[in-house]
């Protein structure tokens, strides 16, 4: 930031001085001419005040030159200033209003693209000109004046160039990074499977020039240094000279993104405080249920059932919020163990059946015979089934049926569907269905919920290596399906670890490189 404004004011000073000088010369000539003409005509009037007059005229010339130069500089520099403003907006922290994400995405890729082209130009010209002749066009000059961390990789993904800003940013001297493997130096985690490595691999396979940007990338640096959070833009050009194949530019957002994380932690903390009283309430409801069931009063029994169902719902909601906070903070870790899928589905269904029962809804479960055992994290997968059933109950009218079906998919995965015959989902909102806080606006008034359930379910299923999707028809109902992986497929992965279980991060943070992948 400081660098960019320095640059602008330096340009301004240079323009101003040159213009001032030019205008001064022009004005003095003009005024002198005018003075000579007038003195000739009115020599008898002006002859006595010649010196004073000359002084006034010179001051007039200087003043008018100054005003003219200022105005001209302003107008000449305004496009440059606008351009700088754009760059500053794209550049990290310090700008007060968060810019529009969509325009930013384009902008980031553009910066990487532009940087790459400038570097190409610089390296092409520096071949022909000696660096002393054209310091302004030298690669190092340009790269080191770019107010963003920049990395250039060769076809082997070895770092061939790093600018000073990048060195400052990650706290390693540029010369110590050069010649090392990019993934070894930068331990990055991405918010999804779409990683830098995956993109670069694809770009190389199709051997086409390509640019891409990522948001909320994390990087662990030195031990006592906080985790860096940034957006990343990259540009790949197969035909770049000097093996400058890939260029990566970082846009720091550590401050802004970590504030978001803190907000999540605050929510998680407050929700956590709800857990103890909620546990107690459910405990007392359970104790009371025993007593009331033995009295035989049907109305009281019915009330107790409803209380118990409501308690369960509230618990599920609190767990959802806590888990979303874990996903967002890279703290949800799954322990995949061998489980009988039929048992899991049946017990998840039976746990929620009370809630269905009080709404007069019946859940029909079909488990295909001979299903292989699966590799899942029991508690997390429970929550997925619970969330899908909870939605099915919410969006079904009373007295309807919900069908749960577990079977093998064509791809050899264990597929489970939850089908309701309720409202159905508007096609226009389908793409946003698995997004955080997204809910069908039509139903917001009648149907409660947080819009976290599907987001969380997707995160959990993705972390399991499975897939989740939906088919729906308005007025006829929806079918949510998800897959989990048979345990035998995970066995190979298990062999490589001495543990009897596999620990995985949430979909949220998949390590960039296979070397680091958990």
């Amino acid at each position, binding site marked *: 930031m400081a660098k960019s404004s320095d640059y602008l004011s330096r340009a301004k000073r240079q323009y101003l001085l040159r213009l001032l000088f030019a205008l001064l010369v022009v004005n003095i000539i003009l005024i002198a001419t005018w003075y000579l003409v007038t003195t000739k005509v009115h020599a008898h009037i002006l002859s006595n005040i010649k010196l004073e007059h000359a002084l006034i005229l010179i001051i007039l010339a200087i003043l008018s030159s100054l005003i003219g130069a200022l105005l001209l500089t302003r107008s000449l520099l305004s496009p440059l200033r606008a351009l700088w403003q754009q760059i500053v907006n794209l550049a990290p922290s310090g700008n007060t209003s968060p810019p529009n994400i969509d325009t930013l995405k384009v902008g980031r890729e553009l910066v990487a693209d532009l940087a790459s082209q400038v570097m190409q130009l610089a390296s092409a010209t520096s071949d022909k000109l000696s660096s002393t002749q054209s310091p302004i066009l030298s690669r190092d000059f340009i790269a080191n004046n770019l107010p963003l961390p920049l990395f250039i990789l060769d076809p082997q993904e070895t770092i061939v160039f790093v600018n000073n800003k990048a060195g400052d940013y990650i706290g390693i001297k540029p010369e110590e990074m050069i010649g090392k493997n990019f993934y070894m130096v930068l331990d990055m985690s991405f918010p999804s499977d779409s990683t830098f490595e995956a993109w670069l691999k694809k770009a190389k396979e199709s051997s086409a020039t390509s640019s891409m940007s990522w948001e909320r990338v994390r990087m662990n640096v030195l031990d006592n240094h906080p985790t860096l959070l940034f957006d990343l833009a990259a540009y790949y050009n197969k035909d770049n000279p000097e093996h400058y194949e890939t260029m990566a530019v970082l846009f720091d957002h550590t401050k802004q993104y970590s504030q978001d994380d803190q907000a999540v932690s605050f929510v*998680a903390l407050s929700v*956590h405080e709800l*857990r*103890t009283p*909620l*546990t*107690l309430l*459910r*405990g*007392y409801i*359970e*104790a009371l249920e*025993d007593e009331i069931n033995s009295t035989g009063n049907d109305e009281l029994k019915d009330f107790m059932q409803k209380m118990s169902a409501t308690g369960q719902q509230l*618990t599920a909601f*609190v*767990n959802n919020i*806590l888990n979303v906070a874990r996903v967002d903070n890279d*703290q949800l*870790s799954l322990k995949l163990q061998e489980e009988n899928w039929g048992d899991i589905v049946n017990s998840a269904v039976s746990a929620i059946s009370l809630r269905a029962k009080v709404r007069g809804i019946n859940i029909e479960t079909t488990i295909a015979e001979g299903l292989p055992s699966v590799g899942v994290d029991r*508690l997390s997968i429970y929550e997925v089934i619970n969330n899908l059933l909870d939605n099915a109950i919410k969006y079904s009218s009373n007295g309807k049926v919900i069908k749960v079906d577990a079977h093998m998919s064509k791809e050899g995965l264990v597929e489970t569907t939850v089908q309701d015959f309720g409202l159905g989902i508007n096609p226009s909102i389908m793409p946003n269905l698995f997004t955080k806080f997204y809910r069908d606006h039509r139903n917001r008034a009648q149907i409660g919920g947080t819009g976290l359930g599907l987001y969380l379910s997707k995160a959990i299923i993705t972390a399991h290596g499975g897939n989740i999707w939906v088919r729906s028809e308005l007025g006829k109902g929806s079918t949510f399906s998800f897959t989990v992986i048979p345990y035998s497929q995970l066995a190979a992965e298990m062999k490589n670890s001495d543990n009897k279980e596999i*620990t995985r991060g949430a979909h949220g943070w998949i390590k960039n490189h296979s070397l680091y992948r958990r």
Partner: protein
Amino acid sequence: MDNSNELTNTNKPHKKVLCIEDERFIGELYKRALDKGGYEVTLEIDGNKGLALAQSDEFDIILLDLMIPNLTGIEILRILRDPSKTPHLKAKIIITTNLEQREDVREDIEKQADGYVVKAELTPKELVGFLDNIA
């Protein structure tokens, strides 16, 4: 959990449970459910007293909360698992907590204990079912 647990358990010899838990209401609920499930329960809210009771080696199961006054559950666990401080312990130790633990901390605790229960994830009756399976 279904009610059949209660019937089968009442026929077995009563197992002794020490419940070190400073949240009185939780302790009360656990005691009630465990009594019904055929266990004999001693409640203790203080860490030091809880440790002394545990070391008396009279119990089959110790339910150990992590957040208790005077000694933390982790400290108690460490002393109970240290042969120089606790030469013999027949009891199985079940950690009960509502705390969010860091993964490595939790793993360390789980290694030393015989069970790890997040209180919010189980109702008292479900806890009884859990103990029936573990003991």
